Every structure is written in C-alpha cells, then in structure tokens.
C-alpha cells in the first residue's frame, strides 16, 4: 500500500511523508493536483491524502477525479480552511474522512 500525498506546503508534505515512512508505508509526493494527474498510478488499495486548499486546481477537483476511477482508493482530506469552506467544498462527497490542520488527533490510526 502506497500513500499518495497531494500537499503544497513543503514542510507539511515532508512531515506527512516521514510519518508514513515511520510506519513502513511507501509514499509518493505531489505538490499540487496537476502533478497528481489523473490518478492512474494509484491502485485501489492505496490511500490518497489530499489538501483542499491547493494552488491552481482545488483539492475537491482531485477528489472528483479519484472518485471517477473504476475502483477508487480511499481518500483522506486534510485542510486548514475554515469549517464552512470545508463543508462547502465537501458537500458532494460522502464518507470521506476530513482532518483539520493542525492535526491534533492521530493520523496513523486512519492510515492503518
């Protein structure tokens, strides 16, 4: 299982990667939605961490593409946006875990 991390902030992206590696996960890193592309490299057993507030393409666009895959992998949203904006961006998606920055709860339990 690979964890795909779509996050524009260098520090957060690297820290997420280190944490995932510390529990033995492979990681692939993307600074924005465009770099993530169509998500064709993602296998159904993978996990995709998506930041909502991405430069350029919005995080919800990335999620929409992932959901269009034949067997979509699990998506976890991370966001520092105000709650109202998160609700608005996530209004069309059901059953997606959202973690707000700063991540005070244990991300690892979600990754296991």
């Amino acid at each position, binding site marked *: 299982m690979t964890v795909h991390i779509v996050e524009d*902030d260098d*520090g*957060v992206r*690297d*820290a*997420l990667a*280190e*944490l995932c*590696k*510390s*529990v033995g996960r492979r990681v692939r890193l993307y600074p924005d939605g465009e770099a993530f592309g169509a998500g064709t490299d993602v296998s159904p057993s993978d996990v995709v961490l998506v930041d909502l507030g991405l430069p350029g393409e919005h995080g919800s666009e990335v999620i929409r593409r992932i959901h269009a895959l034949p067997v979509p992998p699990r998506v976890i949203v*991370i966001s*520092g946006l*105000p*709650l*109202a904006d*998160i*609700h*608005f961006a*996530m*209004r069309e*998606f*059901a*059953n*997606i*875990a*959202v*973690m*707000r*920055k*700063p*991540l*005070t*709860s*244990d*991300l*690892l*339990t*979600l990754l296991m």
Partner: protein
Amino acid sequence: MQAVRRPTLSEARLESVLETAPDGIIVMDEGSRLLIFNKACEQLFGYQASEVIGENVSVLMPREHQDNHDLYVQRYRATGERKIIGIGREVEGRRKDGSIFPLDLSVGEALTPNGRQFIGVIRDLSARRETERRLAAVQADLIRMTRVSALDEMGSALAHELNQPLTAIMLYLQALEREVQRLQSAETKLEPRAVELLGKATREAQRAGSIISRVRQLVEKRAPERKRSDLNTVVDEALELAMLGRRRSIILERHGPETLPVVFVDPVQVQQVVLNLARNAIEACHDADRPTLTIKTWFESDSVCFSVSDNGPGIAPEQMQSLFSAFRSENGTGMGIGLTISRAIVQNHKGELLVDPGGNGHGARFTVRLPIAADEKVANRDSAAAMPLAAAAEPDKT
C-alpha cells in the same frame, strides 16, 4: 382693573401668529417675568400658559441655571454685553415633569412703552439629537464591526499561516515518537531524558495547536445573518453613514432604478462593504476638483449590482498588485484590510467584487455583484452547509 375690550387689529394678528407658530415663543420683561407663552410652548414644556404667565422664566430652566439667570439679565442691563441676544445658542429646557431637553434658543430685544422686553424663539432639538445619537451609534457599531472583522481576518490568516509549520512539527514528532518506540522495543536503550523531552515537545506542540483551533472557532462562530433584502435600501442606509458630516465637502451622485430584485444577504455585512468602498472613494477624491462620489445600482440577468466610483486619480498600477492583501503595510490607511474584508464578505455571499483602477483622468470604480435570491437554491445550500462531515476524525471535538 382694565375693562375687557376687543383686541386691536395688531393684537389679533399677534395672537394668531403666536397660536400658529410651530416654534415656541416667549416674551419676558426686564424682571424675567413671563408675559407671553404661546401654544407651541405649552406643548414643549407641558405647562398651560395660565400656569406660567407672570412667573420667572427660570421655571423653564434646569435647576442649575435657575439661580444664575437673573444675574445674566442684570449683567446685560449693566454692561450691554450680549451673550445670547441676536446670537442664539443651544441650551437646555426643563419640562413641567422635570425632564430636561435640548433646545435652540434665539433671543431678541424690544424697547416698549412698558420698558425693555425680551422675546425668545424656542425650537425643540430632542428629535434631531435623537437622530444624531442614533446615527452616531449605528456608525460606531459599524466601525466596531469593521474592526472586529479586521481582527477576525487577521486572526484567521495568522492561524492559517501558523497552522502549516505547526502541522509539520506535530507530524515530525509523531514520526519521531514512532521511531523511539521501535528503538525501545529493539532494546537499543534510548536515553530516558531524550524520551522525556520528546514527550514534552509533543505536548507543547499540541497546546499550540489547540490555541489555533480556539482562535479559529472564535472566528467561525460569527455566522452571517442573511435575509431577503432590498439592495437599494441597504446601499442608501450605508451611504447615509458614509456621508455623515461630509455633505458639504463631497458631492453624492446616486443612480439606479427604484426597484431591484430581492437579494438574500446579511444587510449589515453588505453595508460594511458599501461603507468601506465609499470611504475609500471619498478619501481618493479628496483633492479632486468638485470631489464626487458616484453610486449606481442595477440588475442584470441573475445578479443585482452596485458600483462605487470617485473622480480621484485612480489606483496606480503598482498599488493594484497588493490591493487586496490584508497585511500590506505601506498604506497606513488600512485600505488593504478593508478591501480584503469586503471581498471576503462578497465572496461569502457567492458574489464578486471587481475593480476598475481608472487612471488617465478617471477615478477608480469598484463593482459588487450579488446573486438574485433564489429561495429554493438558498435553502438547499444552507442544508448542505449544515451537514456534518462524514466519518471525520474531528480533532477540535476531541
């Protein structure tokens, strides 16, 4: 005793003037005794004329002025120095029930066969004062709210900026903790002091995180109160505030149809936008020849719009770059924050704020578009926003 006689023509005229005058009129003699107390005065002070005719005029004054009034009159008679006669001023009156009210008093003087007489014309200022007080209160409210939103804006921007590194720190610490656990189980004994320090660092990072969460909750609590509103009314009320005390220095041009489609907005927030834009415009055309603020309202296919423009120099290209940045420091007027808030408010209403910088003899023009209220759509969106996050590990609630 004088025999009852028919009033002369001039007496009849005077009588009718006194009866119909909208202002209070009193006449007193040199000894401050009331000779005339007209109908309007009866309404103003609550006394019948018969109750006060012959009394000292000081019954109409607050107690603290009563004793001095006779002195004022004496001093005038001795020196001829006019402090109020022919000048007029705002003073306080006392009603029969003891209540005090502001009034505008003009005093004239007449030399009559019966000696010197003083005529006072009294205009009640309580209504005007009340309006002024109310307007000042509303404006103070708006200014306070603008400041609060500026703080909100800064608070959330700051929280967001700090969030990123803090998130990274907490994740690194989690990873490090993981690493330490692995080492411990591999019986490569780690210095206990290092474990202890790591625990402390984690706790402190979490503390910082919860502070940021709290700041954010504070900001998010203030939800807009939207209702069906007429944009013309919203704009005009805000303009009234913006123009307060400036009617003489700024020309206001207002264009637009009398009726507009209804918008679904928080009127106070939209007024904040109008006020912000109008203030910026007034400031911008300060040095113009005939400074003019032009406000238009109109509607197009699915939106209701208003624009605020001035006849100032326009916005310089280098200023346009950072026009909306909240933390711009080179402009001490705080225009950046005002515009940032304005744009945030407009976007919150699913509208847009457009800027035409002007220049070359044209002032800047800011245009705001707000979607026409479509009640069904609005209801749907609100229920979507109220939907709880699905299966979320909501850190703020733990």
